[in-house]
């Protein structure tokens, strides 16, 4: 079997991932777009799904499908078993202590909203403070803004520098006795910056401030260990880690989850209901109202197992090599500027080309079969920080190739020629 071997980088083992086999696992990668082989570089928005994930979903609907935690019948028992097994897969993946700390949600946004509401309802009052950073995605700004408006609290933001690195040394001075929670992204979806979250958590904890990590982009860039990080909350989406859409996870320390109030009412979150008083189910069900996305959960568990079988460290290491190669090649194009030049970056490159609008660049690349994201990437404060209209973003996954990077570089050169 042909193996793709690439040169070793400083901090990683030489990466050996079997690209030929991996690419066969993703049917969509065989597609042609306008007569050209698809180059999919929009992995920051969503990743493609391996066949095993699609098979899990199909098999589940074909042979098990039944609502969980309800039926006395065999199918319901099997369905429940699969759902709870998926929870265990995720517990292990995040190295959480207990499965009761793994809440299924519809995605990162829902996870953050859950905490902003349920934690905020109990712990945040008028005059208190919530800290985010200036590089957050809108989903990690707006829920906190809504909380602050509801409670009369204040939202503060930790700035970042010209390279796109958080000014972590300013964090200590931003925290006050009124700070109730800090929410920070693991990896910036626009800049690619990998934030020093362990250090940030350590600083916040010194002041008894709990920390939520937005893992939307971080979850597929290396091994996550919530106990080692000592994260209070970690939120991510299934579809950004090769799983289905509509399923996500909130990890939360039991000590917080137990004190938080339910977010939505109905279904599994209930223990007993009378018109006088409703009592709530125990964790994690307290936060899982309505019919759970059990098939999504099973699909996500399959995706995680697939990702592990590729090798999380190997995949990350290979993505870093792709990133370094793409960075070097793109910078050879005169007039191209990379936005986000942090020392520690995930495989996300944002760039602008002379004064060509990112939308124009994206449209021409599309015609060449290359899928990139353009615009503000739902991070308007980041785009405003650099005083630009937006960027073209190529986000790379382990199923991408060096040849595809070459096609992007050719495409960008062509754009430059067309608009010159």
């Amino acid at each position, binding site marked *: 079997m042909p193996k793709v071997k690439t040169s070793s980088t400083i901090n990683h083992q030489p990466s050996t991932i079997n690209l030929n086999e991996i690419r066969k696992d993703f049917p969509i990668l065989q597609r042609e777009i*306008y007569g050209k082989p698809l180059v999919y570089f929009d992995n920051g928005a969503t990743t493609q799904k391996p066949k095993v994930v699609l098979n899990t979903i199909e098999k589940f609907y074909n042979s098990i499908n039944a609502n969980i935690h309800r039926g006395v019948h065999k199918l319901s028992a099997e369905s429940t078993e699969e759902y709870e097994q998926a929870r265990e897969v995720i517990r292990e993946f995040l190295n959480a202590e207990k499965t009761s700390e793994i809440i299924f949600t519809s995605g990162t946004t829902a996870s953050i909203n859950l905490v902003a509401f349920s934690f905020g309802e109990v712990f945040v009052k008028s005059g208190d403070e919530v800290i985010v950073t200036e590089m957050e995605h809108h989903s990690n700004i707006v829920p906190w803004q809504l909380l602050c408006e509801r409670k009369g609290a204040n939202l503060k933001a930790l700035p970042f520098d010209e390279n796109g690195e958080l000014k972590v040394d300013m964090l200590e001075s931003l925290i006050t006795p009124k700070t109730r929670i800090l929410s920070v992204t693991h990896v910036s979806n626009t800049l690619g910056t990998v934030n020093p979250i362990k250090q940030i958590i350590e600083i916040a904890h010194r002041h008894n401030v709990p920390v939520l990590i937005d893992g939307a982009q971080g979850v597929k860039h290396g091994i996550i260990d919530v106990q080692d990080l000592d994260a209070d909350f970690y939120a991510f989406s299934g579809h950004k880690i090769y799983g289905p859409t509509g399923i996500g996870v909130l990890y939360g320390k039991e000590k917080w989850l137990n004190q938080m109030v339910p977010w939505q009412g109905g279904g599994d979150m209930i223990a007993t209901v009378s018109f006088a008083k409703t009592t709530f189910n125990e964790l994690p069900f307290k936060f899982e109202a309505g019919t759970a996305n059990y098939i999504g959960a099973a699909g996500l568990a399959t995706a995680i197992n697939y990702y592990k079988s590729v090798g999380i460290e190997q995949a990350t290491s290979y993505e870093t090599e792709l990133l370094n190669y793409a960075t070097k090649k793109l910078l050879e194009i005169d007039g191209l500027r990379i936005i986000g030049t942090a020392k520690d970056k995930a495989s996300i490159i944002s760039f602008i080309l002379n004064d060509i*609008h990112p*939308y*124009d660049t994206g*449209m021409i690349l599309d*015609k060449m079969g290359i899928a990139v994201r353009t*615009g503000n990437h739902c991070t308007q404060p980041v785009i405003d920080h650099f005083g630009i209209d937006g960027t073209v973003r190529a986000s790379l996954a382990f199923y991408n190739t060096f040849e595809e990077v070459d096609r992007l570089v050719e495409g960008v050169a062509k754009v430059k020629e*067309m608009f010159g």
Partner: protein
Amino acid sequence: MTLNEVQNSIIDDFSLFEDWMDRYQQLIELGKDLPPIDEKKRTDQYLIKGCQSKVWLDADLVDGKVQFTADSDAIITKGIVSLLIKVLTNRTPQEILDADLYFIDKIGLKENLSPTRSNGLVAMVKQMRMYALAFQAKSNNV
């Protein structure tokens, strides 16, 4: 030329280009040729929502005919809006409201535009019709 004659001549022009690349190159040239809108009009008041790139559009009624001016920060979008202007400017409000803009399909713009992009195109046309409607309502009231 009538409104449809202009549409037909655009279709003829674009049919010369078989390659999508040449069609886009043509749009880029058209975009570059459209004079920029008055700096004072590059404000939210004239901005069309629904485009990934920004489009500013204004209209005046001169001797019963609508005169459009528009601009965009993206050149391809500007090329597209310049085509719409070629077809719809200097027409009566009724002509604009009655227009069947078949040229969009014929030159392969619509089929090649993703929903968000065609929303942009749709939003532009809608805004132009809104101006026409407003002018018509105003003149009916006089």
